[in-house]
């Protein structure tokens, strides 16, 4: 039972707003676009998939990449599987990605090193995720550091 998400629609609502914010950000977006890869995040509880295409020309103007919630038409270069709750805490900056892989909380496949290049790039978004939760009226889902 997820601590933060009612169902997949709930998760997609939040990540839609979050990824739109990140991929249109003038500072973060271009750096993400430089990664040149397609990443699929596979979430459990609720079961969801989000694919971020940083390789092909963005579909929408003003975006530095394209994201798909649920089924996607293209094949990923790298995938990362984790619980939706783990991802929720990660985007707050509260999960150590090295530790998560070492302890098996996150499983990965494909061009892992390409995805790792993104880690420092997305770090500034850790402040943005709780802001998005606030904007959507989900203050109760904002995680605070113990």
């Amino acid at each position, binding site marked *: 039972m997820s601590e933060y998400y009612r169902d997949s629609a709930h998760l997609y609502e939040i990540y839609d707003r979050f990824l739109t914010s990140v991929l249109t950000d003038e500072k973060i977006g271009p750096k993400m676009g430089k990664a040149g890869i397609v990443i699929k995040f596979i979430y459990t509880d609720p079961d969801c998939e989000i694919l971020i295409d940083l390789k092909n020309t963005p579909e929408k103007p003003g975006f530095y990449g394209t994201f798909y919630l649920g089924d996607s038409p293209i094949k990923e270069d790298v995938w990362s599987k984790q619980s939706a709750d783990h991802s929720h805490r990660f985007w707050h900056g509260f999960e*150590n990605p*090295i*530790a*998560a*892989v*070492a*302890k098996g909380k996150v499983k*990965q496949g494909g061009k*892992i*090193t390409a995805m*790792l*290049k993104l*880690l*420092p790039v997305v*770090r500034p978004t850790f402040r943005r995720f709780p802001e998005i939760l606030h904007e959507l009226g989900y203050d109760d889902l904002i995680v605070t550091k113990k």
Partner: protein
Amino acid sequence: MNANTGKIIRIDLSSHSIEILEFPPAYYANYIGGSGLAAKLFWETADFNAAPLSPESMLMFMNGPFAGLKLSGTSRFCAAGRSPLTNGFSDSSCGGYFAPELRYAGFDGIVIVGKSKTPVFLVIEDDNIRLMDAAAYWGKGIEDVTRALKERFDKKYRTLVIGPAGENQVRYANIMHDNHHSFGRTGFGAVMGSKNLKAVVVRASEKKMALFDPEKFEELRNDINPRIPKGMIPEVLREFGTAGSLESHVYAGNVPIKNWTSNFWEEMAEALTGTTLSETYFKGRSSCAYCSIACKKIIEIPQGPFALSKGSGPEYETIVAFGSLLGSMDLGAACKAGRVCNDLGVDTISAGATIAWAMEAYAKGDLTDTDTDNTALKWADMETVIDIVLPAIAMKKGGLGRLLGLGSAAAARKIGKRSIDYTAHSKGLEAPMHDPRGGGHGKALAYALSPRGACHLSSIMHFIESGACYYPEIGFDYDLEPMTDENKAKVAVFAVEMGNIENSACFCQFADRQITLPEWIDLFNCVAGYDWKINDLLGAGRRIFYLKRLLNYRFGFRALDDTLTPRMLEPARDGEPKGIQMNFSGMKADFYTRIGFDTTKGIPTREILEKFDMAKESAIVW
């Protein structure tokens, strides 16, 4: 004897005599090999009154029990003795191809005492061991001498060579192996130079080894080897080198900037990171013997002020020491500085750190043009660093070269003006390029407690605190919060045990992250036939740590020396860790209680030593 050969070469350079020593098997079982065995041999046979650069001092090269076994990560070996930089017992680790070759030649190590009247080099061809005239090589750089030795013998001969810095006994002179691998830390190149020993070459005629249970070892090897390159850290290392995580370190506040005056410099992160190195100057990978990670980089800079021919590229430590630490974000300059250091024979960490201290001292007016022979030491002036400062250090040229050749701590003591406060060292050894104020408070504890001085590899705290390793089989399953003191002392006890096991087994700390504790036990048992359980393994690690502490107690180190400089203990000034004050004294006190140290002497109590079968050693210090 299994695993080890049981034979150690002893050379007295004063008399040019060579003998083969054999030590009791218990030395190996209790002290493993590498830095542990070196500590034991030093304790039993060294002249404690000998100054580090005197003829009587003792220099050792020591293998671990797994050298030559075609297992990823086991081709490292150790140099050890009394350090001219710290004046204490120290060890330094080097990868490459020398350790397997020495093992195949039939030896676990080399002990060198005395001083040759004229420059010589040592040749080991199986049991044909001899000293040869090195006059033609003396005064030359490491690249030329390595090339000449390989042309004279054969490219398959493995070499250890010192440069002008070693000959001139610069306190942080290194020893280079095959021109690409380094005994960087604590100045053993100066010890070689003080003995007029320019080089060592080794070649074995066949690859012969005896193991306790070769079938079991082969089974283990086939299981472990394919796993080692597949972890998250090894994949980053292979793709981007040891600087692959530099950018993440910058955002955490783990990378020292401008002599530790800052923890955050965003533009520098992308300029210096390993991904940038791979996208710009990268020409290929290289590795240590039998390693499937291949973290080393071959680079070339075709043109520009820092043009470099195709050859070895810099590690993370070198990139930061000659990059952000000096206020520079010029990756080409860092590459060039690293190559120059390797040819002159100076440790890149100590050299970069000492120059960074000097730049701050110059900016403050604590160092004047009179001190620097009218060389302006300005942040990010890499041409001056490469063309003037590094050669001056290696040649001990002028006041500047003689001063900076002492290392930052001794140089700061010499000029006074409280400039020691803004050095970054422990026990005289300059800190590596990981800033505990942002990278994790446990690292501060590890630096201060390390017998050889500020070092992130003497214990495995660096890896535990970053979340890279867990040992659930013994209930060791902590999720450490880097920027607090919570559980740090408790973890540090285990971290020093494992660090000493790894450095004594001469196992690469990147490769062995994939190895579980039961596999460690299986490896020792099938290779050496020890019949160990986990407590025996950890006990050996603890015993080795204790012995190194006792050695340094005999050299005058006390509990008060287990500390860091004021600069390293102040709260971070910027970045994510801004304003956080670490509880260093609390962590240290907690560690002392847990490890059983006397709070004044800084060594284990008599009772603790006896518990670890060290009553004989105890009787000397208590």
